[in-house]
């Protein structure tokens, strides 16, 4: 058992080496701070001002929390693209031939996005909502950051399954990532309650980790009992484990097929 864990840890670590190198090539601290973070904060303000437009301060507070939490969806979804970068880097053949578990490698390979999204989402939640009347008490801050971290990681687990599909259609990686990200934002309860949508959509939405993460953040803000917040976080983790298991199976199947028919090497 400990051998299995050590192998998984080593594989994830090897993925994170690529992840760190990619992130450094992508951003400097200046472009991350003044480019990427500012863009995401503008995204939260963009949606929040709709609440101002419709003239409902209570609804504005609802939107600003939803828009801030879904920042992590937009960022985690970048893993769909970065999973496909090995196609262009010429390393796909080596990965296909490698004896490591491809799913765990890809888990580590794009970890830069959930790591970055913990920072961006936390900043979005702590800085912007107070301008719209949401007040955090000091003891809520560490709980909030913890919930954000779990939401980012859980959403990343969901993204990995989508990324495994994009690996087969690498030219469509950005389209796949954007459509999924937008769909999740539509039904996640970020801008309108999940109950607004038809019943089948509400049921499907329960499979999305961010739905539970966002609900937990709203409960925390409303001062709900700890057990209610923890229960939603638990549902989120359960959903994340299911998505991760599906993603690992998907990567394993795609790579075992590629080893026999060379399908990833075209």
């Amino acid at each position, binding site marked *: 058992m400990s051998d299995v864990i050590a192998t998984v840890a080593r594989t994830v670590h090897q993925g994170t080496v690529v992840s760190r190198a990619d992130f450094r090539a992508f951003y400097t601290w200046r472009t991350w701070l003044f480019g990427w973070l500012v863009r995401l904060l503008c995204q939260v303000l963009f949606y929040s001002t*709709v609440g101002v437009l419709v003239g409902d301060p209570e609804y504005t507070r609802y939107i600003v929390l939803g828009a801030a939490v879904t920042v992590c969806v937009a960022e985690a979804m970048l893993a769909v693209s970065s999973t496909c970068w090995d196609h262009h880097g010429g390393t796909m053949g080596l990965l296909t031939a490698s004896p490591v578990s491809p799913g765990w490698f890809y888990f580590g390979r794009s970890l830069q996005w959930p790591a970055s999204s913990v920072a961006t989402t936390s900043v979005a939640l702590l800085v912007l909502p107070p301008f719209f009347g949401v007040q955090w008490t000091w003891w809520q801050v560490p709980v909030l950051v913890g919930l954000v971290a779990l939401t980012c990681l859980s959403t990343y687990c969901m993204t990995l399954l989508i990324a495994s599909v994009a690996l087969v259609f690498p030219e469509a990686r950005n*389209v796949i990532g954007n459509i999924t990200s937008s769909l999740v934002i539509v039904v996640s309860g970020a801008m309108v309650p999940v109950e607004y949508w038809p019943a089948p959509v509400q049921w499907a939405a329960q499979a999305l980790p961010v739905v539970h993460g966002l609900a937990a953040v709203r409960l925390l803000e409303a001062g709900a009992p700890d057990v209610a917040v923890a229960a939603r976080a638990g549902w989120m983790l359960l959903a994340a484990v299911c998505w991760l298991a599906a993603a690992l199976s998907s990567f394993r199947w795609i790579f075992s097929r590629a080893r026999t028919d060379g399908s990833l090497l075209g």
Partner: protein
Amino acid sequence: MRTALTGFALGSGFQVRTMARSVDTYYTLATIPMTTAVLLSMMLYSGRTDLASYAVVAPTLMALWTAALVFAGEMIADDRKNGRLELLVASPVSPAALVFGRLCGAMLVSLPAFGLAVATAGLVFGHWVTVHHPVVFVLAALATALATAATATALSALFIAAPGSRIVQNTLSMPVFLLSGVVVPLAFLPLWAAAPGRLLYLSWGADLFRDALTPGPVEHTAARLAAVLLLGALALAFGTHTMNRFLRRARAEGSLSRV
């Protein structure tokens, strides 16, 4: 003037032909139904059906600007990758006119974008948008598309002259959507945020689009159209000047391969 017109015609024709098979085209259009659904659900949930047309205008303008950023950023890089850049620079046509022509061709993406937004509002939410002022609508669409292509030409010139500035390609979308009031008119923003927005052609275009879809009279149409076109013309002049100056220097120093 003749080389500019030739460049414009060649560029727009080439762009229309290549766009149909470009993934970037579908990238721009792919999220329109979801953006419309998010914005329209917010309007309808809050009981403001009178604002439903805002949720159709915004995704169309967002698609225009997204296409401008994507194509302005990728155009020169693609020319370089495909070995066309040196040939284009050596040819007698005006490079800025060629780029402007190509970006004007790219603006045709706004037609399916508007169609997708209208169809989503109608088919999913049962809210069919009425164009109350069709002439204003068509003129606003033309002026905004031209100004977008002109602004994208300026960005394209900036991306060639300062490759490091390409980082703005990923970051300019949301700040511009917010500051130009594509969904929330600038009148709802505080003055310090609304003032810079008035320098963006998109804010004047967005107001005109919204007015064209509302039953009341549209005021100062000519002046507002002129504001869109003037801001576009200024951007085009900046883009042409920057591109020409950079290419003159690149020719003299033989540094084009570093683009």
